């Protein structure tokens, strides 16, 4: 992704290069234009509708929350592959409190449930210096098992409940349309003007029928950026992930900071789980997280351990998922979009005399194009695998540009500086 993004950034007029916001805007407009063009030449209508983008938003938020959780943990130097387990705890406790009390209580309990498993991960990895991966695997096994146990005990006797699912929650969280904007762009979307209506559909999808929890989830992106990069606390937390011994020598309470990072991580993953219950399903179903914790991890890596990057990654994954759910032909049209992007990239790389990447991009671009014109649909299993495949490709191609925290995953014991 970093690759793609910077390429597109620099491909817009060089004079703009200094201005971040201008580049971002041109990138977004370019993306919308691409979708509009692809939509007009192929037999789909779902790429830019408000319905698709509303679904994409709802599907992205839980992935993003798990990813942001992973970021807090890894920025403090603790690898967290227990995100999935923490998310499972979030779904269970979210549904339990949502059913017993109400949706907002569900959110609180979901956060707390995730945080408890975060705390367990912190005790194991920070206090006892256990291997982070080992502890994460154990958390996933433990969380799945204990939630099953709790379901059997709590939900089996209830009507609508059972060993693998809870009764419905009391009510949903209120939704709202952003005043004026939502109406205006919904109206504009219906006009069917090339590009304008496409952009309007996207804006309308992102501003209509919004759940308050979605707003809170999205707000966490700038908040976590501000906390981590603009406060002393954030600097301390990140210093523990980069060089804990240096941090220690400057008086940073490293162990405590790592605890903060991992517990926040669990809380955010739990919030993601609660979101699945409270905003999407309305009940707890065993296995409803369906690997979203791992997807969050993928989105975080994809986003280079940054909040905005994590959001972009989750949006991409959520968008692919939304298209698959709404209209499979739309996914097929996406092949054309990918082909165009790759071929543009190839031309650009060649112009900058970077021939090896240019050849690869060109070959893959042509392959995607051939795939597009020779088939009518993309198997849904391929779409399901896409986020993982993309992450793997990004990791393989952009190792130079991705940088994880320097001391991420290393064991730290107080006072052991070499």
């Amino acid at each position, binding site marked *: 992704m970093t690759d793609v993004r910077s390429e597109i950034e620099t491909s817009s007029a060089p004079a703009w290069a200094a201005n971040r916001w201008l580049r971002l805007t041109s990138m977004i407009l370019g993306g919308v234009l691409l979708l509009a063009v692809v939509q007009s030449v192929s037999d789909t209508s779902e790429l830019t509708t408000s319905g698709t983008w509303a679904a994409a938003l709802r599907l992205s938020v839980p992935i993003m929350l798990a990813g942001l959780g992973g970021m807090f943990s890894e920025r403090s130097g603790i690898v967290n592959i227990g995100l999935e387990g923490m998310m499972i705890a979030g779904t269970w406790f979210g549904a339990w409190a949502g059913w017993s009390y109400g949706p907002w209580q569900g959110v609180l309990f979901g956060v707390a449930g995730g945080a408890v498993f975060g705390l367990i991960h912190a005790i194991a990895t920070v206090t006892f210096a256990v291997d982070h991966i080992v502890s994460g695997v154990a958390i996933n*096994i433990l969380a799945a098992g204990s939630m099953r146990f709790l379901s059997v005990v709590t939900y089996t006797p209830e009507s609508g409940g059972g060993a693998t699912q809870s009764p419905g929650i009391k009510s949903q969280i209120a939704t709202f349309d952003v005043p004026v904007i939502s109406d205006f762009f919904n109206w504009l979307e219906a006009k069917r003007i090339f590009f304008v209506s496409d952009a309007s559909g996207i804006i309308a999808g992102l501003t209509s029928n919004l759940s308050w929890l979605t707003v809170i989830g999205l707000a966490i992106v700038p908040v976590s950026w501000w906390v981590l990069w603009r406060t002393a606390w954030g600097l301390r937390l990140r210093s523990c992930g980069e060089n804990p011994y240096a941090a220690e020598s400057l008086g940073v309470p490293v162990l405590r900071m790592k605890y903060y990072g991992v517990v926040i991580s669990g809380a955010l993953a739990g919030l993601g789980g609660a979101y699945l219950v409270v905003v999407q399903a309305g009940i707890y179903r065993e296995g409803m997280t369906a690997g979203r914790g791992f997807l969050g991890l993928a989105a975080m890596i994809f986003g280079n351990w940054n909040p905005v990057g994590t959001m972009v990654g989750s949006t991409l994954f959520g968008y692919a998922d939304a298209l698959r759910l709404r209209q499979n032909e739309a996914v097929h049209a996406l092949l054309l979009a990918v082909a165009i992007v790759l071929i543009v990239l190839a031309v650009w790389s060649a112009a900058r005399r970077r021939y090896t990447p240019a050849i690869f991009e060109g070959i893959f671009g042509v392959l995607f194009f051939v795939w597009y014109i020779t088939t009518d649909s993309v198997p849904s299993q391929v779409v399901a695998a896409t986020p993982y495949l993309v992450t793997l490709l990004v990791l393989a191609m952009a190792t130079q540009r991705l940088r994880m925290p320097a001391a991420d995953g290393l064991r730290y014991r107080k006072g052991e500086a070499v």
Partner: protein
Amino acid sequence: MRRVLLASLAPISAIVFSLIVASIALMLVGRSPITAFGAMWDFARTSTSVASMINRAVPLYISAVAVAVGFQMGLFNIGVEGQYLLAALFAGWVGGNIVLWAPLHIAVILAVAIIVGMVWSGIAGALKVTRGVHEVISTIMLNFIGFSVIAFLLLNYFKDPNGSSLNLATPPLPPSGQLPNLNWLFGALGFSEPRGIDLHGFAVFAIVVGVFYYLLVWRTRFGYELRASGINPGAARMAGVNPNRMIMNTMLISGGVAGLVGLAAVFGNLQSYTQDFPRNLGFNGIAVALLGRNHPVGMALGALLFGFMDRSALILDLKDTPKEVVTIMQGVVVLAVVIAYEVVNRFIERLEIRSAAEATREAVEGAAA
């Protein structure tokens, strides 16, 4: 003796701790832990239960060995899950579609499973060696990609056209691809034969894998280099061990062993790869490897313990006790055992520091006197 005692201290205290946690969980929901554990113990002591326990332990053990090979050099293959499922799919499909002389037929199934496992783990190895992608991340991604590949292939190409559409499966193994059961072992040892459940013949391969693992790691040059790379990668490299080649070979061996995990079910009760094929054996294998501390015998005990828990839990439902308490125990035991190892290590470290300090003081005093 003291070494064995110290080595078993951690797993035993972890098991005790997990029993305590499980007892608390049971008491919280108003069930008696003593009745529950008593019922489990009684239920597990029949030949049928023992056969089932071993059947359950076999794939866990092989999975643990697959993980342990990587652990020996600090390489974390958490992709066993995807590797064994994919391998079982291909092995089941190939095995169900050919008829050969029986030993050859079985050899073909084994070979397919090993090769598919190797290919899938080899991708992770190649990505690490050539592109520096961390194997934990790549194997997680490959797991999910593998699940999709399996779903796609099973639905579109590998399903048995005569089979049920409710539970897609590869064609069942013809007689020449089946392994005989080992029920006679019980009779030979003077016990009654198991009823309703066979002791699957594939158990023999678990023993072969265990012996292979022991010989490979402790009796070959490769094993020596493997352990050296795990303990001190820098020193190993200085001694001429090529780290990239080690990573690649270790991932391949780990994946090859992982490929065999699913065969326990293919040769066992399923006789094919089915849509509801047993899952999570890869992750539980990690638990068993940790419990047995990568030791061939320790892991066998750990696998049998997990097999015992899974089998004996079945009785709990009849006693109105949620059998899921066993899963909690398994989760707790993994976490507790790694923490316990850490605590025991720190304890030993402190003992050593103290005894070294005492020895120094004695030496100094002796010199002074």
